[in-house]
């Protein structure tokens, strides 16, 4: 009797008691499905966070901020240091540095016609959209020429555009900031929205750094964006620039590399995700254990119910090993099918979450295969005691059993 025949025999036997087999399977199914779903979401969440951080800092760019800025855009009340022209010149003097840009953050009232709204202002270089992960949905981003020429142009966040222009077309329209009219050249959606807009609000206006300095001469530069040549060791360069800036400021802790800050936040977030995954995974593991106990219980009932069948099989020449295997295979078949269904349903849950939230939930295939094998192993382990009980039955007493 080969393995496949044993499985098909087990299937025949399980089919004669469909509801019971299904209910027994359910415990394993739920356990495995939740493990798969949790792994998928955990993986997806981690990928989303890391992805946001990786693309948040544009390629070959080092972001340097005054130490007192915990994060870009959040000025501290006690802040004494700001970046000035001499700092930018120091950074620009390093070899391997192609360009040094800077960004300013603040808030201002933005008006259009009789409507107005309090918005956050983000002003920077022409690649500000890469630095802050903006996706231009209409019009275009401002150009290097706009920055050099101090042009009065602005890109609005989608929500700000909606507030000021309603359903009308904002492109080409005018908005006033600090009494100066700016021409709207683009609308953008922040791809960090899900992560940061909770704290920052999503009404934002983006403009060239030079224009912003004209409008708000007393705003300080809050971030330096150093564009390095491709292939540069960014970490090393960042360290050298920060050291030079600190010496210039006469304060060993004046500046910090905030791209490093971002990645350490990322590391923390991914650690939290891992811990959460482990905790919920442990709970799912307990569910699986309970499922396994259910399988054992049902197999014991089944062995008792089928005592006479076992006696008959022994009288027909079944060895103890054959009886043992019959029940082991039956138990493993239940849990393996439950595990397989669990993998499928868990993956579907992951897919559903991916479609509903955009978190790139995915199940690595080794995890899926492992879960399946593990559920089969649960079947074998939990079937061992009942199967052994069956194999040890006295044939005559078993035959007599009613």
């Amino acid at each position, binding site marked *: 009797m080969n393995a496949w025949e044993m499985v098909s025999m087990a299937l025949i036997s399980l089919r004669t008691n469909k509801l019971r087999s299904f209910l027994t399977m359910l415990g394993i199914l739920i356990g495995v499905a939740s493990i798969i779903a949790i792994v998928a979401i955990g993986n997806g969440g981690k990928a989303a966070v890391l992805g946001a951080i990786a693309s948040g800092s544009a390629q070959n760019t080092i972001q340097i901020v005054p130490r007192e800025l915990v994060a870009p855009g959040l000025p501290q009340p006690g802040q004494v240091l700001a970046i000035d022209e001499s700092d930018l010149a120091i950074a620009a003097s390093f070899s391997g540095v192609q360009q040094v840009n800077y960004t300013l953050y603040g808030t201002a009232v933005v008006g259009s016609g009789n409507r107005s709204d309090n918005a956050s202002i983000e002003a920077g270089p022409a690649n500000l959209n890469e630095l802050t992960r903006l996706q231009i949905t209409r019009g275009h981003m401002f150009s290097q020429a706009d920055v050099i020429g101090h042009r009065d142009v602005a890109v609005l966040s989608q929500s700000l555009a909606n507030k000021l222009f309603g359903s009308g077309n904002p492109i080409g329209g005018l908005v006033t900031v600090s009494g100066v009219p700016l021409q709207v050249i683009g609308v953008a959606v922040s791809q960090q929205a899900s992560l940061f807009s909770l704290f920052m609000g999503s009404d934002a206006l983006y403009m060239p750094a030079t224009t912003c300095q004209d409008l708000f001469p007393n705003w300080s530069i809050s971030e330096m964006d150093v564009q390095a040549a491709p292939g540069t060791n960014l970490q090393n360069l960042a360290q050298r620039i920060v050291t030079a800036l600190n010496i210039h400021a006469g304060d060993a802790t004046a500046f910090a590399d905030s791209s490093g800050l971002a990645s350490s936040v990322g590391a923390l977030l991914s650690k939290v995700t891992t811990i959460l995954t482990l905790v919920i995974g442990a709970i799912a593991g307990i569910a699986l254990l309970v499922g396994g106990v259910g399988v054992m219980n049902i197999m014991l009932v089944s062995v008792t119910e089928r005592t006479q069948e076992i006696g008959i099989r022994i009288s*027909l020449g*079944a060895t103890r090993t054959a009886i043992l295997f019959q029940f082991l295979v039956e138990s493993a078949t239940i849990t393996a099918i439950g595990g397989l269904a669990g993998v499928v349903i868990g993956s579907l849950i992951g897919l559903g979450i991916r479609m509903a939230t955009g978190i790139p939930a995915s199940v690595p295939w080794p995890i899926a295969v492992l879960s399946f094998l593990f559920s089969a192993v649960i079947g074998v382990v939990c079937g061992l005691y009942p199967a052994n009980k069956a194999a040890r039955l006295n*044939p005559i007493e078993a*035959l007599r059993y009613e």
Partner: protein
Amino acid sequence: MIELNGVRKAYKVGDELLMVLHGIDLRIEEGEFVSIMGPSGSGKSTLMHIIGCLDTPSAGEYRLRGTSVGGLSARDLAVLRNRTIGFVFQNFHLLPRITAVRNVELPLLYAGVSRAQRRSRALELLARVGMADRAQHLPTALSGGQKQRVAIARALANDPALILADEPTGALDQRTGLEIIELLRELHSAGRTIVVITHDPTVAAAADRTIYIVDGHIQREEVRRG
């Protein structure tokens, strides 16, 4: 074929030993048709279980085809039951949830016969006992006589030399019972050794020899033919 020397069997009931067989000496030759009679509780089934290698004697020796069964391993005994012995029971003992043909296939399954060969052999056996048209029926859809025919087909699966039948007609009406006995007689003429336990004198009379057991002793025997 069968040789018992001083076979005793005792069961433990609570703290006491209940002696069921008190030293049975018995020889059954290859190709004999023997019936065993005796009052209820006299130990007939116990004797048959020992002969069928489902149970072992408490004392004494049992030789099957010259081999002392006492020295065999559990696996060897299983092989003996599978290849050399075919059982027929009073209550048929078909597995209720699988079809007639699958029931007949069981001994072939444990003998390691391939799926296709199992099926063709089982159908052939069912045809031989007149049950070809009921191969796909579940036992619950068969009458008592039909069940017993299927059970006999199953007992014949591995072409065993010895058929042991414990009251094979006990659950059947007279006419059906006689049909079953006729079937056993045919198997006997084909050269098989047959041992039938029965309470029915007409069934017993079909055998070459009848052994009477009372209280665990062989009281007497009656030889008709052979």
